[in-house]
Protein backbone atom coordinates (compact mmCIF):
# COMPACT_ATOMS: atom_id res chain seq x y z
CA UNK A 1 0.00 0.00 0.00
CA UNK A 2 1.21 3.48 -0.69
CA UNK A 3 1.75 5.71 2.25
CA UNK A 4 2.71 9.00 0.66
CA UNK A 5 -0.55 10.73 1.19
CA UNK A 6 -0.69 10.68 4.89
CA UNK A 7 2.93 11.59 5.46
CA UNK A 8 2.36 15.09 4.21
CA UNK A 9 2.28 17.90 6.67
CA UNK A 10 -1.19 19.26 6.53
CA UNK A 11 -0.93 22.36 8.62
CA UNK A 12 1.12 24.34 6.17
CA UNK A 13 3.02 25.50 9.17
CA UNK A 14 6.73 25.32 8.63
CA UNK A 15 8.09 27.31 11.49
CA UNK A 16 10.95 26.10 13.62
CA UNK A 17 12.13 23.07 11.65
CA UNK A 18 13.21 22.76 8.06
CA UNK A 19 10.51 21.15 5.99
CA UNK A 20 12.98 18.52 4.89
CA UNK A 21 12.60 16.55 8.10
CA UNK A 22 9.89 13.95 7.75
CA UNK A 23 7.57 13.10 10.59
CA UNK A 24 9.43 9.79 10.85
CA UNK A 25 12.68 11.62 11.43
CA UNK A 26 11.11 13.96 13.95
CA UNK A 27 9.74 11.04 15.96
CA UNK A 28 13.11 9.28 15.84
CA UNK A 29 14.80 12.42 17.15
CA UNK A 30 12.17 12.84 19.85
CA UNK A 31 12.87 9.28 20.99
CA UNK A 32 16.42 10.41 21.73
CA UNK A 33 15.12 13.31 23.81
CA UNK A 34 15.20 16.05 21.13
CA UNK A 35 12.56 18.49 22.36
CA UNK A 36 12.98 20.82 19.38
CA UNK A 37 12.15 17.96 17.03
CA UNK A 38 9.13 17.17 19.14
CA UNK A 39 8.04 20.81 18.99
CA UNK A 40 8.25 20.60 15.20
CA UNK A 41 6.19 17.41 15.26
CA UNK A 42 3.60 19.20 17.36
CA UNK A 43 3.54 22.17 14.99
CA UNK A 44 3.01 19.96 11.97
CA UNK A 45 0.34 17.70 13.41
CA UNK A 46 -1.51 19.47 16.23
CA UNK A 47 -4.25 20.97 14.07
CA UNK A 48 -5.18 17.51 12.82
CA UNK A 49 -5.08 16.05 16.32
CA UNK A 50 -6.75 18.87 18.21
CA UNK A 51 -9.47 19.36 15.61
CA UNK A 52 -10.42 15.69 15.64
CA UNK A 53 -10.36 15.50 19.43
CA UNK A 54 -12.45 18.67 19.68
CA UNK A 55 -14.98 17.22 17.28
CA UNK A 56 -15.31 14.08 19.39
CA UNK A 57 -15.32 15.58 22.88
CA UNK A 58 -16.95 18.93 21.89
CA UNK A 59 -15.68 20.89 24.85
CA UNK A 60 -12.57 22.98 24.02
CA UNK A 61 -11.13 22.74 27.53
CA UNK A 62 -11.42 18.95 27.52
CA UNK A 63 -10.10 18.79 23.98
CA UNK A 64 -7.01 20.69 25.08
CA UNK A 65 -6.53 18.34 28.03
CA UNK A 66 -6.87 15.25 25.88
CA UNK A 67 -4.54 16.70 23.25
CA UNK A 68 -1.92 17.41 25.86
CA UNK A 69 -2.19 13.84 27.15
CA UNK A 70 -1.89 12.54 23.61
CA UNK A 71 1.33 14.40 22.91
CA UNK A 72 2.82 13.44 26.23
CA UNK A 73 2.10 9.83 25.42
CA UNK A 74 3.53 10.21 21.93
CA UNK A 75 6.69 11.66 23.43
CA UNK A 76 6.97 8.81 25.88
CA UNK A 77 6.23 6.16 23.26
CA UNK A 78 8.36 7.72 20.53
CA UNK A 79 11.09 5.08 20.77
CA UNK A 80 8.45 2.41 20.24
CA UNK A 81 7.05 3.85 17.09
CA UNK A 82 7.77 1.32 14.36
CA UNK A 83 7.89 2.90 10.93
CA UNK A 84 7.68 -0.56 9.36
CA UNK A 85 4.19 -0.97 10.78
CA UNK A 86 2.75 2.30 9.61
CA UNK A 87 3.21 6.02 9.32
CA UNK A 88 3.41 8.68 11.99
CA UNK A 89 0.14 10.50 11.48
CA UNK A 90 -2.16 7.47 11.58
CA UNK A 91 -0.30 6.30 14.68
CA UNK A 92 -0.67 9.67 16.35
CA UNK A 93 -4.31 10.01 15.36
CA UNK A 94 -5.03 6.50 16.55
CA UNK A 95 -3.69 7.35 20.00
CA UNK A 96 -5.65 10.60 19.95
CA UNK A 97 -8.90 8.99 18.83
CA UNK A 98 -8.67 6.30 21.49
CA UNK A 99 -8.21 8.91 24.15
CA UNK A 100 -10.96 11.13 22.84
CA UNK A 101 -13.35 8.20 22.70
CA UNK A 102 -12.34 7.09 26.18
CA UNK A 103 -13.08 10.58 27.41
CA UNK A 104 -16.59 10.75 25.99
CA UNK A 105 -17.47 7.21 26.97
CA UNK A 106 -16.39 7.63 30.55
CA UNK A 107 -17.41 11.23 31.11
CA UNK A 108 -20.23 12.12 28.81
CA UNK A 109 -23.40 12.19 30.80
CA UNK A 110 -25.90 9.47 30.17
CA UNK A 111 -28.48 12.18 29.74
CA UNK A 112 -26.90 13.30 26.52
CA UNK A 113 -26.12 9.89 25.16
CA UNK A 114 -29.38 8.25 26.06
CA UNK A 115 -31.54 10.76 24.36
CA UNK A 116 -31.51 9.01 21.06
CA UNK A 117 -34.19 11.08 19.49
CA UNK A 118 -32.34 14.29 20.25
CA UNK A 119 -29.11 12.74 19.07
CA UNK A 120 -30.51 11.67 15.79
CA UNK A 121 -32.02 15.03 15.09
CA UNK A 122 -29.14 17.08 16.28
CA UNK A 123 -26.37 14.84 15.18
CA UNK A 124 -25.67 15.02 11.50
CA UNK A 125 -22.01 14.18 11.53
CA UNK A 126 -21.24 14.28 7.86
CA UNK A 127 -23.24 17.38 7.08
CA UNK A 128 -22.10 19.37 10.06
CA UNK A 129 -18.55 18.37 9.45
CA UNK A 130 -18.85 19.47 5.88
CA UNK A 131 -19.85 22.92 6.97
CA UNK A 132 -16.57 23.35 8.74
CA UNK A 133 -14.49 21.99 5.95
CA UNK A 134 -11.69 24.23 4.96
CA UNK A 135 -11.12 24.68 1.30
CA UNK A 136 -7.73 23.11 1.55
CA UNK A 137 -6.70 20.64 -1.10
CA UNK A 138 -6.47 17.92 1.52
CA UNK A 139 -9.97 18.53 2.73
CA UNK A 140 -11.29 18.65 -0.81
CA UNK A 141 -9.60 15.34 -1.50
CA UNK A 142 -11.10 13.76 1.60
CA UNK A 143 -14.53 15.06 0.66
CA UNK A 144 -14.19 13.36 -2.69
CA UNK A 145 -13.09 10.22 -0.90
CA UNK A 146 -16.05 10.45 1.43
CA UNK A 147 -18.31 10.60 -1.56
CA UNK A 148 -17.28 7.08 -2.45
CA UNK A 149 -19.04 5.12 0.29
CA UNK A 150 -22.81 5.02 0.12
CA UNK A 151 -24.60 7.59 2.32
CA UNK A 152 -25.58 4.76 4.68
CA UNK A 153 -21.98 3.61 5.00
CA UNK A 154 -20.79 7.17 5.45
CA UNK A 155 -23.30 7.77 8.20
CA UNK A 156 -22.19 4.68 10.13
CA UNK A 157 -18.51 5.53 9.74
CA UNK A 158 -18.87 9.15 10.81
CA UNK A 159 -21.11 8.33 13.78
CA UNK A 160 -18.43 5.95 15.00
CA UNK A 161 -15.44 8.14 14.23
CA UNK A 162 -16.65 11.63 15.09
CA UNK A 163 -19.49 10.65 17.39
CA UNK A 164 -17.33 8.28 19.40
CA UNK A 165 -20.10 5.69 19.50
CA UNK A 166 -19.56 1.94 19.67
CA UNK A 167 -20.95 -0.04 16.78
CA UNK A 168 -23.65 -1.31 19.11
CA UNK A 169 -24.65 2.28 19.89
CA UNK A 170 -24.56 3.16 16.21
CA UNK A 171 -26.92 0.27 15.54
CA UNK A 172 -29.27 1.61 18.23
CA UNK A 173 -29.09 5.13 16.90
CA UNK A 174 -29.88 4.01 13.37
CA UNK A 175 -32.34 1.31 14.45
CA UNK A 176 -30.43 -1.29 12.49
CA UNK A 177 -29.26 -4.81 13.26
CA UNK A 178 -25.72 -4.84 14.63
CA UNK A 179 -24.56 -7.10 11.81
CA UNK A 180 -25.65 -4.52 9.26
CA UNK A 181 -23.74 -1.78 11.02
CA UNK A 182 -20.59 -3.90 11.29
CA UNK A 183 -20.68 -4.48 7.57
CA UNK A 184 -21.47 -0.87 6.71
CA UNK A 185 -18.60 0.45 8.78
CA UNK A 186 -16.13 -1.98 7.29
CA UNK A 187 -17.30 -1.62 3.71
CA UNK A 188 -17.42 2.16 3.99
CA UNK A 189 -13.86 2.29 5.26
CA UNK A 190 -12.69 -0.11 2.58
CA UNK A 191 -14.18 2.14 -0.08
CA UNK A 192 -12.47 5.14 1.43
CA UNK A 193 -9.18 3.29 1.67
CA UNK A 194 -9.37 2.18 -1.92
CA UNK A 195 -10.33 5.63 -3.13
CA UNK A 196 -7.42 7.13 -1.25
CA UNK A 197 -5.07 4.54 -2.70
CA UNK A 198 -6.10 5.39 -6.22
CA UNK A 199 -5.72 9.09 -5.63
CA UNK A 200 -2.43 8.93 -3.82
Amino acid at each position, binding site marked *: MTSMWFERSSSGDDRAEPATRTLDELVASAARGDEAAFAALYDQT*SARVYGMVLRVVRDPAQAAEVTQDVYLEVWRQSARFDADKGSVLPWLLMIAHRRAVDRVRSAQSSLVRDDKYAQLNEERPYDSVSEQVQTSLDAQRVRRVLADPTPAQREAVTLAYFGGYTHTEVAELLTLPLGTVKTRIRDGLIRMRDALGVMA
Partner: protein
Amino acid sequence: MTDELNVLAGAYALDALDDDERAVFEEHLHSCPECTEEVRGLRNAAAELSHLTEVGPPPQLRAAVLGAVAQSRPLPPLVDGARVLPLRRTRSAALWQGLAAACALIAIVVSAWGYSEHRQAQRSADARGSVVESLLAAPDVRATTTTMKQGQSTLIYSRREHRLVLIGRGMPVLPADETYQLWMMSATGEPVSGGLFRPDPNGNVELPASGDLDGVDRMGVSVEPAGGSAQPTPTTVQVLKL
Protein backbone atom coordinates in the same frame (compact mmCIF):
# COMPACT_ATOMS: atom_id res chain seq x y z
CA MET B 1 -9.11 -15.47 8.86
CA THR B 2 -12.44 -15.92 10.55
CA ASP B 3 -15.16 -14.12 8.65
CA GLU B 4 -17.16 -13.44 11.77
CA LEU B 5 -14.21 -11.72 13.39
CA ASN B 6 -12.83 -10.21 10.22
CA VAL B 7 -15.94 -8.09 9.79
CA LEU B 8 -15.00 -6.35 13.04
CA ALA B 9 -11.88 -4.86 11.46
CA GLY B 10 -13.75 -1.70 10.50
CA ALA B 11 -15.26 -1.07 13.90
CA TYR B 12 -11.92 -1.87 15.48
CA ALA B 13 -10.15 0.68 13.29
CA LEU B 14 -12.66 3.31 14.45
CA ASP B 15 -12.40 2.39 18.15
CA ALA B 16 -16.03 1.37 17.97
CA LEU B 17 -15.75 -1.96 19.78
CA ASP B 18 -16.50 -2.23 23.45
CA ASP B 19 -13.76 -3.47 25.75
CA ASP B 20 -14.68 -7.15 25.59
CA GLU B 21 -15.04 -7.21 21.84
CA ARG B 22 -11.77 -5.42 21.45
CA ALA B 23 -9.95 -7.92 23.64
CA VAL B 24 -11.29 -10.79 21.55
CA PHE B 25 -10.41 -9.09 18.30
CA GLU B 26 -6.91 -8.19 19.42
CA GLU B 27 -6.37 -11.78 20.41
CA HIS B 28 -7.45 -12.72 16.92
CA LEU B 29 -5.08 -10.16 15.35
CA HIS B 30 -2.12 -11.98 16.85
CA SER B 31 -2.81 -14.95 14.66
CA CYS B 32 -4.28 -13.25 11.58
CA PRO B 33 -1.85 -11.30 9.36
CA GLU B 34 -4.65 -10.52 6.87
CA CYS B 35 -6.73 -8.78 9.52
CA THR B 36 -3.68 -6.96 10.82
CA GLU B 37 -2.97 -5.64 7.36
CA GLU B 38 -6.59 -4.72 6.82
CA VAL B 39 -6.78 -2.86 10.11
CA ARG B 40 -3.71 -0.88 9.14
CA GLY B 41 -5.26 0.17 5.86
CA LEU B 42 -8.61 1.05 7.40
CA ARG B 43 -6.93 3.00 10.15
CA ASN B 44 -5.04 5.01 7.57
CA ALA B 45 -8.33 5.75 5.85
CA ALA B 46 -9.93 6.77 9.15
CA ALA B 47 -6.98 9.05 9.89
CA GLU B 48 -7.77 10.97 6.72
CA LEU B 49 -11.14 11.93 8.18
CA SER B 50 -9.32 14.29 10.49
CA HIS B 51 -8.64 16.57 7.53
CA LEU B 52 -12.29 17.50 7.78
CA THR B 53 -12.03 18.81 11.32
CA GLU B 54 -8.64 20.46 11.23
CA VAL B 55 -8.56 23.32 13.75
CA GLY B 56 -5.54 25.02 15.23
CA PRO B 57 -5.26 24.34 18.97
CA PRO B 58 -5.25 27.21 21.46
CA PRO B 59 -1.79 28.83 21.36
CA GLN B 60 -1.14 28.22 25.04
CA LEU B 61 -1.47 24.48 24.52
CA ARG B 62 1.89 24.37 22.74
CA ALA B 63 3.72 25.70 25.79
CA ALA B 64 1.79 23.35 28.07
CA VAL B 65 2.66 20.32 25.95
CA LEU B 66 6.31 21.22 25.60
CA GLY B 67 6.51 22.02 29.29
CA ALA B 68 5.11 18.61 30.19
CA VAL B 69 7.43 16.93 27.73
CA ALA B 70 10.46 18.60 29.22
CA GLN B 71 9.66 16.95 32.52
CA SER B 72 9.18 13.46 31.15
CA ARG B 73 11.64 10.96 29.78
CA PRO B 74 10.80 8.98 26.65
CA LEU B 75 10.45 5.29 27.35
CA PRO B 76 13.28 3.10 26.13
CA PRO B 77 12.79 1.09 22.96
CA LEU B 78 11.12 -2.28 23.23
CA VAL B 79 13.61 -5.03 23.70
CA ASP B 80 12.59 -8.59 23.03
CA GLY B 81 13.27 -10.89 25.91
CA ALA B 82 11.82 -13.24 28.41
CA ARG B 83 8.32 -12.08 29.23
CA VAL B 84 7.48 -14.71 31.74
CA LEU B 85 9.21 -14.42 35.03
CA PRO B 86 9.68 -17.07 37.60
CA LEU B 87 7.58 -16.56 40.69
CA ARG B 88 9.86 -17.60 43.42
CA ARG B 89 8.97 -18.89 46.79
CA THR B 90 12.40 -18.68 48.30
CA ARG B 91 13.09 -16.02 50.86
CA SER B 92 16.57 -15.41 49.61
CA ALA B 93 17.02 -11.69 49.20
CA ALA B 94 19.41 -12.13 46.31
CA LEU B 95 16.91 -14.23 44.44
CA TRP B 96 14.02 -11.91 44.83
CA GLN B 97 16.08 -8.97 43.84
CA GLY B 98 16.86 -10.86 40.67
CA LEU B 99 13.20 -11.43 40.19
CA ALA B 100 12.50 -7.78 40.82
CA ALA B 101 14.89 -6.94 38.02
CA ALA B 102 13.11 -9.40 35.75
CA CYS B 103 9.79 -7.83 36.65
CA ALA B 104 11.13 -4.38 35.95
CA LEU B 105 12.20 -5.61 32.54
CA ILE B 106 8.77 -7.00 31.89
CA ALA B 107 7.13 -3.81 32.99
CA ILE B 108 9.17 -2.06 30.35
CA VAL B 109 7.76 -4.32 27.68
CA VAL B 110 4.55 -2.47 27.20
CA SER B 111 2.70 -1.73 24.09
CA ALA B 112 4.18 -2.13 20.73
CA TRP B 113 2.49 -0.18 18.00
CA GLY B 114 0.92 2.62 19.90
CA TYR B 115 -1.84 2.05 21.82
CA SER B 116 -3.43 2.65 22.96
CA GLU B 117 -3.66 3.50 25.75
CA HIS B 118 -4.98 0.85 27.91
CA ARG B 119 -6.14 -0.65 25.06
CA GLN B 120 -2.75 0.38 24.41
CA ALA B 121 -1.54 -1.98 26.95
CA GLN B 122 -3.64 -4.68 25.42
CA ARG B 123 -2.01 -4.56 22.10
CA SER B 124 1.42 -5.19 23.42
CA ALA B 125 3.63 -8.10 22.95
CA ASP B 126 2.22 -10.91 20.92
CA ALA B 127 3.57 -13.28 23.49
CA ARG B 128 1.33 -11.97 26.20
CA GLY B 129 -1.89 -12.83 24.46
CA SER B 130 -0.73 -16.37 24.02
CA VAL B 131 0.36 -16.54 27.66
CA VAL B 132 -3.11 -15.58 28.81
CA GLU B 133 -4.71 -17.81 26.23
CA SER B 134 -2.75 -20.89 27.20
CA LEU B 135 -3.36 -20.19 30.87
CA LEU B 136 -7.10 -20.00 30.22
CA ALA B 137 -6.85 -23.48 28.74
CA ALA B 138 -5.52 -24.95 31.98
CA PRO B 139 -8.00 -27.47 33.42
CA ASP B 140 -8.00 -25.86 36.85
CA VAL B 141 -7.88 -22.21 35.77
CA ARG B 142 -9.39 -19.76 38.25
CA ALA B 143 -9.84 -16.02 38.26
CA THR B 144 -10.40 -13.54 41.02
CA THR B 145 -11.07 -9.82 40.75
CA THR B 146 -10.89 -7.08 43.33
CA THR B 147 -11.60 -3.41 43.06
CA MET B 148 -9.00 -1.72 45.11
CA LYS B 149 -7.81 1.72 46.00
CA GLN B 150 -5.17 0.88 43.43
CA GLY B 151 -7.69 0.37 40.65
CA GLN B 152 -9.02 -2.99 39.62
CA SER B 153 -6.93 -6.13 39.70
CA THR B 154 -7.72 -9.52 38.23
CA LEU B 155 -5.66 -12.58 38.88
CA ILE B 156 -5.89 -15.56 36.56
CA TYR B 157 -4.07 -18.58 37.87
CA SER B 158 -3.58 -22.30 37.66
CA ARG B 159 -2.18 -24.11 40.67
CA ARG B 160 -1.58 -27.22 38.65
CA GLU B 161 0.43 -25.44 35.98
CA HIS B 162 2.17 -23.14 38.47
CA ARG B 163 1.29 -20.06 36.46
CA LEU B 164 -0.57 -16.82 36.92
CA VAL B 165 -1.23 -13.52 35.18
CA LEU B 166 -1.98 -10.38 37.16
CA ILE B 167 -4.06 -7.88 35.19
CA GLY B 168 -4.31 -4.39 36.64
CA ARG B 169 -6.58 -1.65 35.32
CA GLY B 170 -6.72 1.97 36.31
CA MET B 171 -3.96 1.71 38.85
CA PRO B 172 -2.62 5.06 40.03
CA VAL B 173 0.64 5.85 38.30
CA LEU B 174 3.30 6.06 40.99
CA PRO B 175 6.08 8.60 41.28
CA ALA B 176 9.52 7.42 40.18
CA ASP B 177 10.58 6.65 43.75
CA GLU B 178 7.77 4.17 44.36
CA THR B 179 6.84 0.82 42.86
CA TYR B 180 4.12 -1.79 43.05
CA GLN B 181 5.10 -5.10 44.59
CA LEU B 182 3.30 -8.41 44.28
CA TRP B 183 3.12 -10.71 47.30
CA MET B 184 2.31 -14.37 47.85
CA MET B 185 0.61 -14.80 51.21
CA SER B 186 -0.19 -17.88 53.22
CA ALA B 187 -1.79 -18.53 56.58
CA THR B 188 1.41 -19.97 57.95
CA GLY B 189 4.21 -17.59 57.11
CA GLU B 190 5.25 -14.12 56.18
CA PRO B 191 4.40 -12.72 52.76
CA VAL B 192 6.90 -13.60 50.06
CA SER B 193 7.67 -11.11 47.32
CA GLY B 194 6.55 -12.06 43.86
CA GLY B 195 8.36 -9.15 42.25
CA LEU B 196 7.99 -5.51 41.38
CA PHE B 197 6.01 -3.98 38.56
CA ARG B 198 4.90 -0.66 37.15
CA PRO B 199 1.72 -0.10 35.16
CA ASP B 200 1.88 1.76 31.86
CA PRO B 201 1.09 5.49 31.83
CA ASN B 202 -2.62 4.67 31.82
CA GLY B 203 -2.42 2.55 34.92
CA ASN B 204 -2.71 -0.78 33.12
CA VAL B 205 -0.51 -3.81 33.49
CA GLU B 206 -0.46 -7.48 32.56
CA LEU B 207 2.11 -9.42 34.50
CA PRO B 208 2.63 -13.10 33.69
CA ALA B 209 4.44 -15.13 36.32
CA SER B 210 5.11 -18.75 37.07
CA GLY B 211 5.70 -20.55 40.33
CA ASP B 212 4.31 -22.90 42.91
CA LEU B 213 1.17 -21.54 44.56
CA ASP B 214 0.88 -24.48 46.94
CA GLY B 215 -0.22 -23.14 50.32
CA VAL B 216 -0.70 -19.64 48.97
CA ASP B 217 -4.23 -18.48 49.76
CA ARG B 218 -3.93 -14.78 48.95
CA MET B 219 -1.94 -12.52 46.68
CA GLY B 220 -1.20 -8.96 47.73
CA VAL B 221 -0.33 -5.81 45.85
CA SER B 222 1.40 -3.07 47.79
CA VAL B 223 3.07 0.27 47.14
CA GLU B 224 6.73 0.24 48.15
CA PRO B 225 9.78 2.45 47.81
CA ALA B 226 11.65 1.94 44.53
CA GLY B 227 13.58 -1.31 44.70
CA GLY B 228 10.90 -3.01 46.74
CA SER B 229 10.67 -4.06 50.37
CA ALA B 230 11.36 -7.26 52.25
CA GLN B 231 7.83 -7.15 53.69
CA PRO B 232 4.77 -5.28 52.43
CA THR B 233 4.02 -1.86 53.86
CA PRO B 234 0.82 -2.70 55.75
CA THR B 235 -1.04 0.52 55.04
CA THR B 236 -0.78 0.05 51.28
CA VAL B 237 -1.31 -3.66 50.80
CA GLN B 238 -4.43 -4.83 48.97
CA VAL B 239 -5.37 -8.48 48.99
CA LEU B 240 -6.76 -10.80 46.32
CA LYS B 241 -8.18 -13.96 47.81
CA LEU B 242 -7.40 -17.10 45.82
